């Protein structure tokens, strides 16, 4: 178990290194920040000066060397746009995203598991049909459209909820609801399928022959086995949210890491892009580790 986690850590570190190299050089390809940050009529001298200050005149490889040296000290440099340490800017945004992702995924997981299990146990019933329909709609709904319709309906027409920004509990409702839909649809489908397989398995037959009641058969015998494939999907969906729900964050003016990344790319704020990618990559690494641990906790065959 610990050796498996060790191997995971090493391979994740290597992917992180590759990621740093790729992102550093690719972001350099987007163009010269001096062209964006200085007035259109800035003199060549001013541009040179700007490049000199930010080390943009050095050969790219030298820039990369400096960058790596700083990274080791957790120094991602300053944001060009905000003139603050890039890491600080990113962590601020990431906190918002993390909260949004955690709340959404907790709700999604609870709802999908409850409804999916019941649907699987009452296969073919009206409840099962409704669950399947919901999951199909959820999995295929375009979030940007739902977001806009949501604003029009609940904020503009009914005036119940704020259109965008943060500040109160009410501000969270629309973004969470919109982000909820797709993972809910997908996970519901996986829970239902996986539960149907597990309910048809031989050990459930044994439990029925033992005289175990229905509720423990569903929630004790079957659910834990059925959770194994579900956890993988939950992980994937959570990773997507951690990366920053770009569209939803932009529409709701939510100051998360997705919105920050888009803004930074558009404004060639290299240090922030890199810091944001490193932070989300690290978060996804941690989450994969948690999934591995959850797997091992649920399935003794992995542990022993």
């Amino acid at each position: 178990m610990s050796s498996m986690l060790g191997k995971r850590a090493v391979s994740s570190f290597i992917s992180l290194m590759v990621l740093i190299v790729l992102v550093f050089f690719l972001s350099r390809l987007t163009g010269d920040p001096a062209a964006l940050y200085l007035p259109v009529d800035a003199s060549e001298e001013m541009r040179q000066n700007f490049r000199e200050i930010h080390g943009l005149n050095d050969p790219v490889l030298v820039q990369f060397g400096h960058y790596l040296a700083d990274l080791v000290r957790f120094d991602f440099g300053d944001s060009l746009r905000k003139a603050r340490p890039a890491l600080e800017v990113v962590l601020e945004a990431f906190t918002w995203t993390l909260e949004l992702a955690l709340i959404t995924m907790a709700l999604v997981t609870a709802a999908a598991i409850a409804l999916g299990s019941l649907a699987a146990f009452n296969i073919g019933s009206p409840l099962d049909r409704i669950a399947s329909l919901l999951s199909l709609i959820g999995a295929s709904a375009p979030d940007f459209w739902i977001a806009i319709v949501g604003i029009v309906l609940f904020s503009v027409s009914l005036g119940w909820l704020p259109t965008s920004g943060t500040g109160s509990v009410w501000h969270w409702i629309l973004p969470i609801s919109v982000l909820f839909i797709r993972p809910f649809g997908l996970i519901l489908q996986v829970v239902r399928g996986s539960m149907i397989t597990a309910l048809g398995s031989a050990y459930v037959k044994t439990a029925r022959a033992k005289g175990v009641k229905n509720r423990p058969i569903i929630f004790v015998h079957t659910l834990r086995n059925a959770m194994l494939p579900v956890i993988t999907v939950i992980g994937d969906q959570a990773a997507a949210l951690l990366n920053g729900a770009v569209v939803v964050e932009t529409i709701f003016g939510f100051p998360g890491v997705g919105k920050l990344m888009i803004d930074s790319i558009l404004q060639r704020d290299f240090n922030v892009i890199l810091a944001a990618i490193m932070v989300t990559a690290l978060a996804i690494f941690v989450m994969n580790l948690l999934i591995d641990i959850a797997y091992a906790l649920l399935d003794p065959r992995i542990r022993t």
Partner: protein
Amino acid sequence: MAEHLLEVRDLSVRFHTARGVVNAVNGISWHLDRGETLAILGESGSGKSVSASAIMNLIDCPPGEITSGQILFEGRDLLTLGGEARREINGRRIAMIFQDPLSHLNPVYPVGWQIAEAGMAHGESRHDAYARTLELMRRVGIPEPDAAMKKYPHQFSGGQRQRLMIAMALVLKPDILIADEPTTALDVTVQAEVLSLLEELQEETGMGLLLITHDLGVVAEAADRAVVMQGGRIVETGTPRELYHNAQHPYTRKLLAAAPGKGAMRQADERPAPILQVRGLTKSYGAFTALKCADFDLRAGETLAVVGESGSGKSTVARLILRLEEASGGEALWKGEDLLKKSHRQMAPLRRQLQMVFQDPTQSLAPHMSVFEIISEAWAIHRDILPKARWRARVTELLEQVGLQPEHADRYPHQFSGGQRQRIAIARALALEPELIICDEAVSALDVSIQAQVIDLLGRLRDELGIAFIFIAHDLPVVRDFADRVLVMQKGEIVEQGPVTEIFERPRELYTQRLLAAGLDADPDVQAGRRAARLALAG
């Protein structure tokens, strides 16, 4: 008329499937008394397990439908009782164990909890249930029961898992135990132990035992009475002796005739020169040695059986010779050339001389390829054998040779029965005109009557084409009928080898004697002798 403990009257069950209605059982009736062992004997598809599922309320309706009948337990008809009343009976009054205990135990919970749950589900306190679990685990012979309670199913052997299932069934001292093919997946020696355990427990508790099986030997060993089922109907009922000596129904007679181990044994021909000489063949996985210094010869046209329990290394021999795995040491001289030293490129032309037929044809035939493609694929690889224009004709020929029809060439594996699939696998092996075919448990998964047909086919091919066989099997009666020489393996070593008559009539090693005594015979009188021999050897 005295009331029976359990009586099934005129039960009919059908299933609504995509391919229409299937009548699983049609108006069957049987009864079971206290302290009695009733066997339901039948081949796959005979409906032998359906009445047990109906008793345990395990038939899902739909797609199942119970169209007629009664199941009387202590005068009450189970089929008219409500769900909660039936749950009360399951586990407490009537318990059931199954074939393949690995999949029937929940993989993610400790076995101690799973056994105790049988008590707790019926209102026993946690403390009592665990105390009883410990007692039962000791009773069924699980070593170190305290520690074993906390282990998970995958940490036990097949025989131990079945013992755990038995313990689970006995927590509440049921009146009836239903055992559905309880020993089918187990080694012969383990099978004999599990059957004796069931018998002892039955004597202690006086429960009625319903034994569902396809194995005439199990009936001869354990049953007081047996019902024979075919196509959802009971064709005959009687004691094992009556059935064996005086079978009335043609189907029972056919089953008895198909039971292997009755024909004349072959006389090994010592004259031909060896085509395969194996010396010091060894395979280790890390510190574990799967095969230690195996030495044996195979003569041209000879059938060499390799027998032993699971884990004895018998399949490893085959995999090493065919280079499906790399040996750790030794040599395998095929007509004087060491197969183990060949590069993969040098091995390719030799592979057509050495073919293999696996145990499970469902897995060894590619599901998306037609029979024609499966058989002719070999000619696409070894291009010099046959020009493409003749492929179709040759496939037809091969199919006829293995007893299939020419029109089967364009069907897919899933459209065939298990026996037919194994014939396809044999035709595929024959396509390369091999000199040696290695059969790894090639008939183990087949019903007795189908098994007999496939063995007949292999025997015919041996006589007509002079093919040599290495026949890996755990089923001794089949080996007795088919082999020239036998190699007995235990824990990676060859403990004894010799002509089939020697091994079966004058076994030298204690292990071979045990193995032979553990094998079950369809004749209850022979079986009684075996049983005595087994007890003598164990004592």
